[in-house]
């Protein structure tokens, strides 16, 4: 681990006309760290994620990313070509709805291989071997490699999306409600898988979720957002066990006890 952060975010704001998307958000993210962003819907967490992943341009503020050569680059000053290259090599983006992140009409193997081909891999045998390897790592049987994701269950699609993102060995992964819409047993296995992958690969991740249990399982640190602002941030266990901001207290106390 280095003593320099991977991502530095400073005073990031996004306004939709007069409406606030997110307002004055600052934080650092270190390599291998998983940061959860929690809050109710409409609190600006997805806006924040989209700004960080350069899918949206913020109204003001800066975000710098430490490239593989150790140099910090200002994300919003990069050319579109550089941003898109970063997006498909050093970054991953796991959508809540796998259909948004997968090509539903090409096979699972091609979905995993696309990033490899995008960075210039031109050997079919090697691409396929890598795809087989990644499918097994996300617990998809090898004989499903030529099936289209349309034939997959929701949980399998989500695991395929994760494999597709991780195949180029990214250092930072953005996840938007990765377990949304899955039933609890599938969620549990997916979380287990994600936790294993994040640890094994030393990934840094920013996970947006409204599910505090997901945040507790996956993340070391969390930020609580409300009306576009960060109302509380700290170590996940501290925030959940000893919430200080009134809104966090409300959020924590709203968890259903079974």
């Amino acid at each position: 681990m280095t003593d320099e952060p991977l991502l530095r975010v400073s005073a990031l704001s996004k306004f939709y006309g007069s409406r606030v998307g997110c307002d004055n958000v600052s934080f650092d993210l270190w390599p291998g760290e998983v940061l959860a962003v929690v809050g109710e819907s409409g609190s600006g967490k997805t806006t924040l994620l989209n700004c960080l992943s350069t899918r949206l341009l913020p109204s003001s503020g800066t975000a710098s990313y430490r490239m593989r050569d150790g140099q910090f680059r200002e994300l919003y000053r990069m050319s579109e070509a550089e941003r898109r290259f970063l997006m498909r090599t050093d970054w991953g983006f796991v959508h809540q709805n796998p259909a948004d992140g997968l090509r539903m009409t090409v096979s699972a193997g091609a979905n995993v291989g696309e990033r490899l081909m995008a960075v210039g891999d031109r050997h079919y045998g090697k691409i396929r071997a890598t795809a087989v390897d990644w499918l097994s790592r996300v617990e998809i049987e090898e004989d499903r490699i030529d099936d289209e994701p349309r034939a997959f269950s929701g949980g399998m699609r989500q695991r395929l999306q994760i494999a597709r993102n991780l195949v180029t060995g990214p250092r930072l992964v953005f996840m938007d409600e990765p377990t949304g819409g899955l039933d609890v047993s599938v969620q549990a296995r997916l979380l287990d898988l994600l936790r294993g992958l994040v640890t094994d690969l030393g990934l840094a991740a920013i996970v947006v979720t409204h599910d505090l249990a997901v945040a507790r399982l996956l993340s070391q640190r969390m930020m609580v957002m409300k009306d576009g602002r960060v109302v509380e941030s700290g170590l996940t266990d501290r925030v959940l066990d000893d919430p200080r901001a009134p809104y966090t207290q409300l959020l924590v106390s709203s968890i259903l006890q079974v």
Partner: protein
Amino acid sequence: MTDIATYNFAYLDEQTKRMIRRAILKGIAIPGYQVPFASREMPMPYGWGTGGVQVTASIIGPDDVLKVIDQGADDTTNAVSIRAFFKKVANVAVTTDTASATIIQTRHRIPEHPLTAGQVLVYQVPIPEPLRFLEPRETETRKMHALEEYGLMHVKLYEDIAKHGRIATTYAYPVKVEGRYVMDPSPTPKFDNPKMHRSPALQLFGAGREKRIYAVPPFTDVVSLDFEDHPFEVQTFDQPCALCAAENVYLDEVILDDHGGHMFVCSDTDHCEKRRQEGHRGHLAPEIHLASEKMEPAR
């Protein structure tokens, strides 16, 4: 019939021809790049070669000799009609002979006879965007061309190998032009792809409905995409042409009867006829009778 004065030379007005020539020049300057142009309504339906006809109309002069082929043949409806059209509106000489033509408008074949410097091959293109079936958004495909993001093209070839064990794309096989733009060579069989590479002839592509023109200047690198372990290959045929016995040419299957009888013949009719005139005979070629007393076969 001789109301040619009511048309401008080559049907299109001069201002339109200038606009199309500008698009052609830009296309030649950026090989493989699809140049948008203000495609006009033509007196024929979309899909019948409106793009090719506009390109031909813009470059043709009174001294040009025009040849038009449709799937290699000079005698099909589309080819005959377009040839008659230019004869009428431009009063140019027309031919079926590849070597003596200066402009060859083609639908989906490159003639077997090698093209030479000074000739122009005009392709009729239905869908100019090679990435279209993989990425339906035009804004996105233009961005992908601009940023040279062509990984998706290989996804298609990957799918072919995964499903069929080999690259099963046989026509509209994607090529990379001069190491930069990925281009759809129009639905020519991939058999013709190697003929595009460093061709001495100028190759122009017109897509009327899609309003795009692109070009491959003479002596430009045109490389078919492939994988290292699945290299590009052209189709091969088990037997020679049934009429002229030509090998290493592209053959069409012709159904002879309703009992499964069929034969394979040259798709390039001009090439086939020339060879038969030279005396080449395939196994189904009709008997020729040089002596007049043998003209009438016994029935």
